[in-house]
């Protein structure tokens, strides 16, 4: 619910939610008596919640639209690489953006066409409205649409599980969550690493945002300050994200 006094409520992107939880945990440890409530729901839901007062801070894992930028205060808390992931047995190790787009659009339907083994391609996408998906569409798909035959999963974890089990699968997900059981391909020649993101070599990057309506409440501001502080940023980096600046 709507928080007051020394409590802050956050709602929004399920991609940011895990990190926000970790931040909240540390924050309340440092500031006893403070209370941080973190909820999922999705990037857009986060914006709405802020708009209708359901939450103090919205979490958004995509760039704001022009209209949204006018409505909300935007706070960049970190950046996240978007990894293109395939099964561990898949020989394909690098792809161009053009090829990725073709694979997800359903124009390329056999792994042989991109240098892999003979076999069908099964793109896995995220649900409509997810920040990850919108970033992916903006960064990769452009005007083209994701194939309607693509499997839709509602979380990074589910995408990962599916890619882990299915040799034909290709998906996209938060770089910080890839782990070792699946492969992340190099895009346009750049390996998906934090360093490459920082250096601007790996181009599939999206912002992770906090948004508030007007000026944040003092309690909310105090939490945001913590997140942007070196301690907060270090925490995020430990979780696999790329710091805001």
């Amino acid at each position, binding site marked *: 619910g709507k928080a007051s006094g020394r409590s802050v409520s956050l709602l929004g992107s*399920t991609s940011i939610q895990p990190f926000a939880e970790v931040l909240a945990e540390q924050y309340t440890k440092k500031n006893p008596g403070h209370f941080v409530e973190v909820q*999922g*729901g*999705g*990037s*857009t*839901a986060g*914006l*709405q919640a802020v708009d209708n007062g359901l939450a103090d801070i919205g979490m958004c894992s995509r760039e704001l639209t022009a209209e949204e930028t006018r409505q909300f205060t935007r706070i960049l808390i970190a950046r996240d690489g978007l990894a293109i992931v395939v099964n561990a047995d898949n020989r394909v190790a690098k792809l161009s953006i053009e090829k990725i787009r073709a694979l997800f659009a359903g124009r390329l339907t056999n792994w042989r066409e991109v240098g892999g083994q003979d076999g069908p391609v*099964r793109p896995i996408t995220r*649900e*409509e*409205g*997810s920040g990850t998906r*919108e970033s992916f*569409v903006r960064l990769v798909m452009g005007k083209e*649409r994701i194939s*309607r*035959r*693509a*499997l*839709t*999963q*509602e979380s990074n974890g*589910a995408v990962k*599980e*599916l890619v882990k*089990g*299915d040799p*034909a*699968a290709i998906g996209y997900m938060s770089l910080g969550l890839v782990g070792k059981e699946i492969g992340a391909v190099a895009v346009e020649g750049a390996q998906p690493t934090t360093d490459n993101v920082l250096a601007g070599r790996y181009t599939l990057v999206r912002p992770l945002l906090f948004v508030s309506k007007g000026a944040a409440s003092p309690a909310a501001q105090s939490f945001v300050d913590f997140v942007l502080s070196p301690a907060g940023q270090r925490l995020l980096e430990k979780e696999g994200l790329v710091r805001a600046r």
Partner: protein
Amino acid sequence: MKRDRLIGAVLLVVALSAISGLALIAAFIFREGVPIILRVGAGQFFLSTDWEPSLGHFGILSMLGGSLAVTLGAAVIGIVFSLGLAIVLTQFAPPGLAAALKPAIELLAGIPSVVYGFVGVVTLVPLIRHALGGPGLSVLAASIVLGIMILPTITSIAIDALQAVPRSYVEGSIALGATRWQTVTMVLLRAARSGIVAAVILGMGRAIGETMAVIMVAGNALALPHSLLDPVRTLTSNIALEMGYASGDHRQALFATGVTLFVIITLLNTAALAVSRRRAGRRRVG
């Protein structure tokens, strides 16, 4: 006695308020959902397979097809298993064994749907992927999981229907030299037909309304399925998947999906009720 009348009035008010919940639900869902159907056009909304909310395309035909496919699949599995169980438990199992097995079926109904979905994803889906090909997440997987989930509903109503057949019919048939199985097929199933049909319809209602398990095992692709091994998205998963993110028209379109679901379920329930009422009516005459 006057006090009794007052109490009766109070209870009536409570009963009506309980039921007004339904009206309230209908009102809210319709208010949120109907406008967009009108705006997009019913033909477009129901008959187009193009669902691309970011571009303003709202067509739910794929989801209708998906719901239909998994519901029919679940019904087939549910019917076969439930009828078998109901017949065995009421006609062939020793009373002690039947009494021990019935709570087990109820337990099956108590398992949370997220658990069904989860177990389906980690066991059934890889099995299908390896044995039959395709992504595993499929109409087939969803049908099996849903079939198991609605089995308790169908079984328990079918058991009631079979038990409602007068014992004298069974005895009459057996005294004329029928085996138990002949009695089941020629007398019992015929006499209990409407009850069983009602059970199946209600079971299908359950299946079409189930959400979490389906999200996990159906694959949620937006295309109409061509085979049992294709992934599908159902009406319910569409709502649950996108609700969190939706705003504006998109959100309304999801409510419109809810309206569709609501109407389908209400039709199914009415059908089930009509079928079972016909049975009751007939019994009174007989």
